[in-house]
């Protein structure tokens, strides 16, 4: 019995995971060309500059695409079927995630629906998940 995969941070990704632990979605942007980007790396993929900085994203996103998996990954046996989604952050970059707080069915998961980030604990890590933006709080 294996549990769900847990990320192991590297020195370059640690600020992202520290942000998640603090309840913030911290990503990077280039201070030369201004482009925000994800996943964490020490160089701007748009212009090649090494002058990059961390900032806290709004946590707002839209549902860009997804599948609803019937093949459980290790530890996901009780979750099937579950959506594996890609969301587009309000700032532009996209990231993979799960969609929580809504049934994972085609009827409830409509492309471009507004979402917002919500962090869920897994082991020592807080993972960014996304829920429909209208869900209270």
């Amino acid at each position, binding site marked *: 019995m294996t549990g769900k995969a*847990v*990320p192991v941070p*590297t020195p370059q990704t640690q600020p992202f995971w520290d942000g998640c632990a603090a309840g913030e979605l911290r990503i990077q942007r280039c201070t030369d060309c201004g482009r925000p980007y994800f996943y964490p790396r020490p160089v701007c993929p748009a212009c090649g500059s090494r002058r990059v900085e961390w900032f806290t994203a709004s946590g707002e996103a839209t549902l860009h*695409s997804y*599948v609803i*998996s019937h093949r459980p990954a290790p530890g996901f046996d009780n979750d099937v*079927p579950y959506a594996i989604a*890609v969301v587009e952050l309000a700032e532009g970059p996209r990231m993979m995630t799960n969609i929580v707080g809504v049934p994972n069915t085609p009827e409830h998961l409509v*492309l471009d629906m507004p979402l917002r980030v919500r962090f869920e604990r897994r082991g020592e890590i807080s993972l960014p998940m996304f829920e429909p933006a209208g869900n209270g709080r």
Partner: protein
Amino acid sequence: MTGVIVAGAAETDQVGRLPGHSTLALHLEAGLNALDDAGLTTKDIDGIATVSAPGPVQVAHALGITPRWLDGTGVGGTSFLLHVRHAAAAIMAGQASTVLITHGESGRSRIGSARFAPDPSSMQGQFEAPYGVAGAPTAFTIPALRYMKEHGLTHEQLAYVAVAQRKWAARNPRAMYRDPITVDDVLASRLVAYPFHLLECCLVTDGGGALVVTSAGRAGDFPRPPVHLLGAGESSETPLISQLEDFTESGAFRRAGQAALREARVTTADVDHLMIYDAFAHLPIYGLEALGFVKKGEAGGFIADGNTEPGGRLPLNTNGGGLSYTHTGMYGMFAIQEAVRQLRGEAAAQVGDVGISVVLGVGGMFATSGALVLGRDPR
């Protein structure tokens, strides 16, 4: 033209379920079969290319080949198309004269084969695996819904890709699945990862294939008709499916495919036969558009209208493809093999007079691509 030919090409004696073969054994059987096909022996080979594991050193050593040129490029199932391109450059540079490219994979029986699990500190391990990705069927498929929304591709059209390819497989005795299927059959097969059903996902099989590549100056020296490499291309995009720049297209497909057509100085109108790596039903759609056979958004209708099936004007994936013929995990070699058979006029589902065939491969999940333009004549 590139100045090189495929002088020998062969698959393992059988493909499908081969529990008596290790991955290495499949490489060796395929390599020896390709040498037989070319009328050569291991002593005629001075260059070796394949993916790890087992890798070029192991394959060369097991066969008793002492290489003066090696290529271990391992960028997924399209790697063998890149090996052909790299071998062509090496041969033209005088670094090798005759290169053996092998593939073997015990994908179904898992005999002596490596398992894939991303390192939890890799980018995939940190930013994709935690969300329950369980292999390619649950990730390679993610862009499709976006494509469907942007271009109006229907579930029925996606399903028809599998129907069209089964029509080819029905004519190929070596294909794993040969019984005709309908759109309803596809949509009634179990959901693997919505919107993909089982019959829209590739097989998992055991098998192998190999190629002998040498200078076109030796075109008359071999027992089988030479197949000329007219052009080739390669590119990559991202190892993370979530970071694909545009979910409705593959930049790697487009760059590799267009480079190959450009080098060969051919247009889509010159192409008689086409192989597009079909790990899943949306790949032929993305590939047809990347190569420019149809405009963006039109490929689903093009396939559903019968253009790519037996009797259609653009025969596509005539062995039955990864969906119905075989898919060991690295299908690119089998796509090349079918193009060679069609150009030689010896395919199971021969489509008549094939002068030019294009092969478009994918590696990883839209991560890499290789493309070959192959011709019966040097041009």
